[in-house]
């Protein structure tokens, strides 16, 4: 029985031999064929290979991951892709900032209202005791 050498997902997809120094194999394992299929569909194998090749080795995994994410976004939303998500996030930021401004305004209003109340209260108590004297009520026994 011959031993079957394991090809990476990219080489399987491209139907070629997977060399020992295959640029794709660390980032496109054979157990996840969909990953390479997505990036290949949007970018093409040669562009993906070039982008990985041009990156320092320690950052190549992030390149592959980000290309996979972007290609998935583009497949799910062929018109806007990732740009649609960015636009949506900007909208979310705008909405949250508006809400925050409203809440802060309410707090500021309550704060100023409370301050007015504090300055108003002693006057009310003074008047009450004066009114009590006038009506003959007294706390003095």
């Amino acid at each position, binding site marked *: 029985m011959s031993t079957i050498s394991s090809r990476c997902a990219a080489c399987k997809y491209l139907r070629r031999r997977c060399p020992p120094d295959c640029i794709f194999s660390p*980032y496109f*394992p054979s157990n*996840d064929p969909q*990953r390479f299929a997505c990036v290949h569909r*949007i*970018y*093409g194998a*040669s*562009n993906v290979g070039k*982008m990985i090749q*041009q*990156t*320092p080795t*320690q*950052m190549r*995994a*992030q*390149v*592959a*991951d*980000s*290309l*996979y*994410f*972007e290609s998935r*976004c*583009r497949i*799910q*939303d*062929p*018109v*806007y*892709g*990732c*740009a*649609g*998500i*960015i*636009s*949506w*996030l*900007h909208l*979310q*930021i705008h*909405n*949250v*900032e508006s*809400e*925050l401004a*409203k*809440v*802060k305004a*309410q*707090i500021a*209003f*309550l*704060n100023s*209202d*409370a301050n007015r*109340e504090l300055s108003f209260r002693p006057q009310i108590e003074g008047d009450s005791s004066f009114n009590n004297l006038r009506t003959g009520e007294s706390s003095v026994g």
Partner: protein
Amino acid sequence: MSSSSSYNSPCAACKFLRRKCMPGCIFSPYFPPEEPQKFANVHKIFGASNVTKLLNELPPHQREDAVNSLAYEAEARVRDPVYGCVGAISFLQRQVQRLQKELDTANADLVRYACNEIPSSAAIPGSNNPVQPATLRQRVAPLEFGGVGRPIGNEVGGAFYQAPLPPPYPLPYPPLPWSDSFGGDFNGGGGNI
């Protein structure tokens, strides 16, 4: 002045590809000759044939938006070869989370004010303002990233996108939301070309 040269002015794509720009060229409505960099970026990242395929799969009225979003992503990738658009998404995601926290804190403060500072509405004549803490209408679900279990950038554990993708919005195409200082958020990530 001969009008034929201006009539047959090749689009940026055909100029770049050094080919004759035929009538009905799929690129010409979207890659005017005055914007050569737009096609150059798109070609570098996606390739002409992939863009053609993408456009052919779309109805004509959606192609302009598709091209502009591709150009946006391509430029993002050229500026940040490691993370591209995903870097911006992660950055904005963190901004939303920070603002949500701030909103939650502010709401809690508001409730505290309502309970402590206003004993009852009758005690304060004229003060009929009901206190209604603002609530975030829609919490933003963070985005999944890391095809082989790697988190994005320096975030441990990454972030996980659970909700379906949001519907596309008519894009105002905001300016790219990162700057040179942003590249420093990700250790070793990004970089200028």
